[in-house]
């Protein structure tokens, strides 16, 4: 386990370096720069252009700029917003808890639905329930999540007036029920795609496991069906799920971007959208870097959890 852990952690570094390179090159290697627009103005003197370039550090060669930037990032300095001139790190820090709240809610919802539905479809294979859940799963991965979100708003907020159409809490509100009321729609819209995918996956895993010899043995021993399914089958089907959860993190983030924008949810997705609209490059670089790092860490966590849960890896 020790060597596995160390090797797995070491694997993250080239990945993180690759991500910083990618983000940096995307912004900096494209021809044209912020000062270029300025130079087009006939009133700008060449020495002014040179001065501003030097101020922004753009007179340095590309590789030097990369190392300066990475050095700053490592020290926790993500730069200042090009629009509001606020510290990117504080801005992200303010928004991150909201995104985490939304994502965790969506994660819990996905688990709550996908596990029972997946298991039941596998047990009752080719039943009407299985058929309906399969078609719903395909629908789930096919539906545009932003459209689903809009339909939910149309139905529950505009027509029925049951739920608020956006925000994290009412003005002056903030109690638990108020917060729950605000989170339920965005969380469901965010969860639906994952939920559908996971349900199909769990069903497939369960079908695979149920066919194994040790399940037949467990049944032959006369164990109750519930024990066979949950103690013997599901435990083994659960293992690959951990990896799947890890792999779903980028999708959660991508989904959060669009769902937060629709529900005016003040998280980093909404922050990124607003930054992109106002061309706030330092802010986008910050959020892309943060979300990618969280994806890398999430995958690391999933792999470590897999190692802990599966004794075969622990020994090897």
């Amino acid at each position: 386990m020790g060597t596995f852990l160390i090797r797995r952690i070491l694997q993250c570094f080239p990945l993180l370096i690759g991500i910083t390179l990618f983000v940096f090159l995307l912004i900096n290697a494209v021809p044209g720069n912020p000062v270029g627009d300025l130079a087009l103005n006939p009133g700008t003197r060449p020495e002014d252009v040179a001065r501003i370039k030097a101020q922004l550090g753009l007179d340095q060669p590309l590789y030097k700029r990369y190392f300066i930037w990475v050095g700053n990032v490592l020290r926790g300095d993500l730069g200042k917003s090009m629009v509001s001139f606020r510290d990117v790190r504080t801005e992200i820090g303010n928004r991150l808890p909201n995104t985490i709240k939304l994502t965790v809610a969506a994660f819990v919802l996905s688990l709550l639905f996908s596990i029972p539905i997946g298991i039941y479809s596998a047990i009752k294979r080719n039943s009407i329930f299985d058929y309906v859940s399969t078609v719903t799963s395909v629908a789930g991965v096919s539906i545009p999540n932003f459209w689903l979100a809009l339909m939910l708003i149309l139905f529950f907020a505009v027509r029925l007036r049951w739920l608020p159409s956006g925000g994290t809490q009412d003005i002056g509100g903030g109690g638990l029920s108020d917060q729950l009321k605000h989170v339920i729609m965005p969380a469901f819209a965010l969860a639906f795609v994952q939920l559908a995918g996971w349900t199909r996956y769990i069903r497939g895993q369960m079908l695979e496991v149920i066919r194994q010899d040790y399940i037949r043995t467990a049944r032959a021993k006369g164990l109750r069906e519930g024990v066979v399914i949950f103690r013997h089958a599901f435990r083994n089907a659960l293992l690959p799920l951990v990896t799947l959860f890890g792999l779903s993190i980028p999708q959660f983030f991508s989904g959060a971007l669009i769902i937060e924008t629709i529900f005016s949810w003040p998280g980093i997705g909404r922050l990124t959208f607003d930054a992109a609209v106002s061309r706030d490059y330092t802010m986008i670089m910050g959020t892309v870097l943060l979300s990618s790092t969280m994806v890398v860490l999430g995958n690391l966590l999933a792999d470590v959890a897999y190692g802990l849960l599966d004794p075969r890896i622990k020994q090897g």
Partner: protein
Amino acid sequence: MVSGRDERAVQRGDGAAIAQPTLAGAGRDKLARTKSPSYALRAWRRFKRNRLSLVSMVIFLIMILFSYGAPLISKYVTKTGFGDQNLQATFAPAGKTISAIQIGGPNSGKTVTTKYILGADELGRDVLTRLAYGGRISLTVSFLTLAIALTVGLLIGALAGYYGGWVDTILMRLVDVFISIPGLFVLILVSTTINNNKLITGTSFYRTSGWLVLPFVIAILSWTGISRLIRGEFLSLKSRDYVEAARVLGSTDGRIIVRHILPNVVPIIIVWATLAIPGLILTEAALSYLSFGVQIPTPSWGNMLTNSTQYFSRSPGLVVLPGALIFITTMAVNLMGNGLRDALDPRLND
């Protein structure tokens, strides 16, 4: 032991799976003379058996006809263009006929009567016409993205799988990097850098067909899946006997890759390509909805939703329709892809 796939074939009454053993004994020379049905034909027979997939394929074809028939629909059915505004028809309900005196254009001063089959939007533009043109853009963007992603993914996957070693390591780490960045974040970032770069936006090409940039943007993140798949296949196929034989005969690497290995991964590519289309349509729609994709006034299913959300209570149809078309199309392609996967799976023994 009967494997899962054979079992499924038997359950579905797959004639070939049952008939095979009897052929082994009787009339072997006869079998040699009768031409067995081609791989494609057998796959098509298997595909046909899945009713849901067949219906989905028909729906997808209808969607393609509807979208690419947009100019015909505009000319003969709705008789308006996708950009024709009529401020007397704003938010016209579905099926309403409105006569208005045209100002400007070839019919200036004349009264033109238009039937708004699916209603009109906030500027009085015919929704049905816009849906058709929007579909054309959305589908074209998706198909182009697919072509680019396939080319890049195939190339990288083939190189990594065939040569292995450090080539493989570097390319696959590259794939890892691309997979670790949440898609929409990067797409928005790339789209912002491109759409604000004077060197690109200043060209006349960008001004006339700027949406053609979009497939390249989306493709940046879409090639990773197929490259991994292809790499795996190449890895296992390159050590097969027939590849070794070709090498002994003096074939070059390029010839082995293209003539000997590639044909064997075609079914996988077809299945992957089909199942990738829904994701690409959804990505285009999401980007356009967020106004980082196809720019107005060019209609796409995604950006038709952007403005409509402001008129939610007044005209919900404007929000429901484009999304419903996206949903129907992606669902149809997904179901069709599932059927194709079952039909084309080369490991399905028949």
